[in-house]
């Protein structure tokens, strides 16, 4: 079973209402096709990992959801509405966004950073709510008064997650959220996000190049290559050999690493 960028698959899932729908979404930069005709639906309440090599178009696809990047063709429907027709500020309030670069505002305190989304919508976040959000990501509520430069990398990304959750979003987008973190922090924060996803009833899309992370956290994995969707399966199905060559190439890496580690344990 071989699938290439020239013949993208069309993925549909009937379980759960689709909160997000990509319809032949395309993004070109001049001659370069970053995303070419992607169609799929994301069910409400699902945790979807978007995996692919660098330059596969996964970040671009994600950014077309909250219009940080505008599609040059096709539509992205959020709750049935084309995202480019929604008021941008309103859309971005309903969509929490966590960046690889974290992007905390250095001239704001942690509390002000968390409260920025509601503030832009003309709503003041209470200190209690900020404390709640900090506790949600396992940070000391006293941190609200500090500035981001006094925090460690892991703490900052926790604040980044808290900021994304501050507006009670329906959808949480994460663009390589743990890429800049050390493995231990990365693992802990990954599990925390998965836990919050379930607890808050979110729909989450996480872009990552780490297949192991995708397999362990998501309940659905989309694989992109050269701007096209080349696999759409559950982690279990991928481990069982589904998804085609590109997906299996990505699955092979952590699997072989695990096997080598197991082999080292078996041979003293």
């Amino acid at each position, binding site marked *: 079973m071989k699938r290439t960028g020239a013949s993208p698959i069309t993925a549909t899932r009937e379980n759960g209402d689709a909160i997000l729908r990509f319809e032949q979404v395309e993004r070109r930069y001049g001659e370069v096709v970053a995303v070419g005709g992607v169609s799929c639906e994301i069910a409400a309440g699902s945790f979807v990992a978007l995996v692919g090599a660098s330059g596969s178009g996964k970040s671009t696809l994600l950014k077309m959801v909250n219009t940080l990047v505008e599609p040059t063709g096709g539509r992205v429907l959020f709750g049935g509405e084309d995202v480019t027709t929604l008021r941008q500020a309103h859309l*971005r309030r309903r969509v929490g966004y966590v*960046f690889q670069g974290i992007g*905390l505002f250095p001239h704001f305190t942690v509390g002000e950073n968390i409260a920025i*989304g509601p503030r832009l919508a003309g709503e003041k976040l209470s200190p209690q709510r900020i404390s709640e959000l900090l506790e949600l990501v396992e940070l000391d509520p006293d941190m609200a008064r500090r500035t981001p430069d006094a925090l460690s990398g892991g703490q900052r990304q926790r604040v980044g997650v808290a900021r994304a959750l501050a507006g009670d979003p329906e959808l949480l987008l994460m663009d390589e959220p743990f890429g800049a973190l050390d493995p231990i922090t990365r693992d802990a924060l990954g599990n925390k996000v998965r836990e919050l996803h379930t607890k808050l009833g979110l729909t989450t899309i996480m872009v990552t190049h780490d297949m192991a992370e995708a397999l362990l956290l998501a309940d659905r994995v989309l694989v992109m290559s050269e701007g096209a969707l080349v696999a759409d399966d559950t982690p279990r199905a991928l481990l069982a050999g589904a998804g085609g060559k590109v997906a299996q190439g990505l699955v092979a890496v952590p699997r072989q690493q695990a096997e080598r580690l197991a082999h080292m344990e078996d041979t003293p």
Partner: protein
Amino acid sequence: MSGILDILLGLGDKFAAHIVLSASAIGLGMAVALPLAVWASRSPAVARVALGFASLVQTIPALALLALFFPILLSLRAVFGEGLPTLGFLPALLALALYALLPILRNAVTAMVNLDPEILEAADGVGMTGAQKLRLVQLPLAAPFIMAGIRTASVWTIGAATLATTIGQPSLGDPIFAGLQTQNWALVLAGCIASAGLALVVDALLGLVERGFASRRRWMWITGLAAVALGVGGALFVQTGGEDEDTVVIASKQFSEQYILAQLIGAQLEAAGYSVEYRDGLGSAVVHSAVASSSIDISVDYTGTIWTNEMERTDNPGRDAMYEAIVDWEQENTGVRVLGRLGFENAYAFAMREDRARELGVISLTDLVAHGPQLTVGGDPEFFERPEWIAVRDAYGLRFGETRNFAPTFMYNALRSGEADVISAYTSDGRIAADRLVVLEDPKEALPSYDAMVMLSPRVAGDERLAAALEPLIGAISVEAMREANFAVDREGEGKLSPRDAARELADKIGL
């Protein structure tokens, strides 16, 4: 030292004028540069053009930029009407604001362009509109760098504002230029100390604002800004208090005789009950246009200057005929009233040291032709561009080995030290007698006569009371009396007088 202190204490109104001018120029510069920087940060093409233009402006010497605004504003009168001022505050403001543009623009654009792209993406990601992003993220983060640019611009502007004196805007340049011409070093020093002190204080205050922005300490930048606002407000208060429509403005060019005559005229008018303001140290080229446009009210000019520079005549009809022709020409063409001749001539003449002239056997300009290529000639900064020099050069076929420019005062020093062999002296100059210089004869009468005349602007031309107050000066000043007064100001050491004191002595001498 106490002399300098006294002068400093007397500089209050110049100080206030300097502050108001500098603050206005920086304010205008900011008003143009900051929006431009925001635009430029979004468009590399705009950034290139804006920074290119600002850099180009910076390459123009400040003095030239100031002078350039006179003809520019004069031509703009076709659009804005005769009321548009061509000298004084407006051209100074425009030139200095242009000058302040570059540091503000460059720092602001650099700061905006180099903001962390991840933070800007985050601003978009949390749902900020373009305006919110600018207000909440870009400007606060760029503020310390923008402030650093404003600081640089302020220091430059305060320094360059001293040059506004040359286009008739009172500033701390007034004592510097007056002191330089009359070799009154205390005056020069006082002007320098005042403007440098002002620059340092402003730099420190804006530095406080910059650090306040950078460290996000509100009290710091508020204190700095409040102090600056207080200073500008105080200066404005002093300024507006002294303005008076009925004030008669007397101009002087940049040499001692002009300072003395301005004081002499001023004293006469004050005695007649007029309030008087002096615009000292105007560029010689702008004085005639200034009086013709009523930017100033009274000037002392010379027949030969008007004849060649304004009427563009090259013939020499003789002293009296020339004067009569000028009176008529001014009346018909500019509306300037020539009140009369003061009685002495301040002509251009070529002078040499007595020993040097004897050694070479030079008595007249004709004798100089053979020696010219081995000699260095010194002239005031405008001399070698003037039609008089061209007339002499062509009449005699004069060629010199080297041509050097000196401020009038330093010309005589150059002659004394041998740095120049021949200089373009002025016949009313006291140093000709004091230094025992030989004035070379002009057998071909190539140099026109230079009778000193009192010129009245169209605004005051019809004021007979003013004319009557100045009438006693007409025909009253002999070349000897003028030389003596000039020398009292130009000399060094014992007996040196300020232009005001020399004017008082001159007034006594001619029996006023």
